[in-house]
């Protein structure tokens, strides 16, 4: 359980930050609303990742799930940073 917890906390944190940053770039509204929406939905995203990690078969699977999704979301972050 400890291994899954670390994946849930650390993986969930990075994933929620990454997804929230992508949403911030995509949402077609003014900056204030984007910041507020980012704050309001980032924690539910984090918890959703936690559920996903705890529902994994093993610690390894929990980390693989997090890192896989983080690779995709992180790549999109990188694209947004470049353009």
């Amino acid at each position, binding site marked *: *359980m400890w291994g*899954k*917890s670390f994946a*849930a*906390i650390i993986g969930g*944190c990075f994933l929620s*930050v990454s997804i*929230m*940053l992508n949403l*911030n770039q995509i949402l077609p509204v*003014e*900056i*204030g*609303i984007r*910041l*507020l929406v*980012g*704050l*309001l939905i*980032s*924690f*539910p995203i*984090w*918890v*959703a990742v*936690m*559920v996903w990690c*705890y*529902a*994994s078969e093993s610690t390894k699977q929990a980390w693989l799930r997090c890192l896989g999704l983080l690779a995709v979301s992180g790549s999109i*972050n990188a694209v947004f*940073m470049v353009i």
Partner: protein
Amino acid sequence: MLSKVFLKRITDAHSWLGLIISGLLFTIFFCGSIAIYRAEITQWAVQPHYNFSEGNALPLSEIIKKAIEGQHFDAKEHLSLILPTEQKPYYSAYIDVVHEVGEKDYVSFIIDPVSGEKLNHVEQFFLADFIYKLHYDLNFKAGSYIIGFVTLFFFFALISGILIHAKKLIASFFKYRTDQTKRSKLLDMHNVIGVMTLPFTLMYAISGLIFNLVIIYQIAFALVLYKGDQQALLDDAGYVAIKPVWKDKPWQDPAIDKVFNEISTRENYQASFVRMYNYGDESAIMHISGTMAQQIGGRFDIATELTTLNETVVNDPINSNVVRKGLQVVANLHFGNYAGYDLRLLYFVMGIGVCVLIVAGNLLWIDKKARQRVSSSRAIKIANAYTLTSTAGVILATIVAFILERVLPIDLNDRHLVLIYSFIGSLIMSAIYAAMIDNIKCCLANLLKASGFIGLALVLYDGIFYFNKIITLAYDSLTTALWTDGSILLLSLFSLHISRSLKFREQQKIELTQAVPS
């Protein structure tokens, strides 16, 4: 459709994490529920000790002069005033002073608005703030992050609880089987409270996370979106810093009272706070803030240059920033301060309901492990002691802090430290007692009984030493002390009642067990 394997894994995580965070979570909810009434508790602590002058209140400028009189006031810093209200008949003043490194950088005073007399230091009445700080940072700096992560796990427990209970969420909405086994009763209690308080607990989890862990996203926003320019982020979020540059020229006839009266008498403006910057200098700014009547999330912040009368920072419903307004709504929802006493009572009841849910959850875990015989008796004993100390122990420690707030001399040095150490001491004593007793329910009953009797002793003490004062205050429409004593009496009786019924049931069980072999 959720698979059985998925539900099993989520249930394991729910109960495992739930047990780990239960101690701090109980403290968060118990202290948070009491802290809903922190303004009233402060008034209960302060008012019976003083006779506030009758007559016309001094103008704000005079109060400021009286506040800094005799102090080594650092005019280049701030002077802040929390204004009197209907139930708070005094100013709380916080004055930044010239200090050495490592020394305290401010002094605080309770000031009579009519005579301008400094009655005492604000920190001498620390109880309400202590309980409130326990709720959000455990009274130490890094505590807010610990509370933040406990809140994160609590949010997970809520979501996993919904998933576990999803199929029966509607069908078993009011299901409480009183005639079934102990486990069914505990499970029903856990589920019923969990479902009924769900909108409230979800709101608490999200808002609590925003308060305590927002720094993570703030850093991410600043680094990635704003390329390290934190000030630009704060500007977009509506947090404009007031930083007047000291001109070293004395001000001429500053319009403190004129500006204050003009703003505080605007329609729906309820001023509650004033802060002076660069007091005495030509660059002085007065910042007035407060709430807008009849609006959720309605706040105003107006900074006025006292020499030119220019309003440099304005945040009100017309000129509001979306982020500030949104976060203010979140704060109002969290504190329940957007309506009257009845709403706060509802918040209190639901908060205590969650405390019961936490205890029921722990008892379920202990019961399950005892049945399965997978955990050693030592592990179960530790879980028992942990549950007792972090629940009934916290209740006992809180009421001990209440009685000390009343009986300790008001001029005692480091009075607030006595309060803190007494709280910690009571917790340690509860832990020792819980470790010594095998029967969890008897131990719970005894700790609740002790809390109930201390509460009764406190009300009795007030009745003997402060009765006339409290009644006189009530006649002057300052009813807070009376209501608070009434509430303590009611909660003490309730605590004694629960203790008695727990003891009675345990006694019945013991008698039944003894009767079976014969």
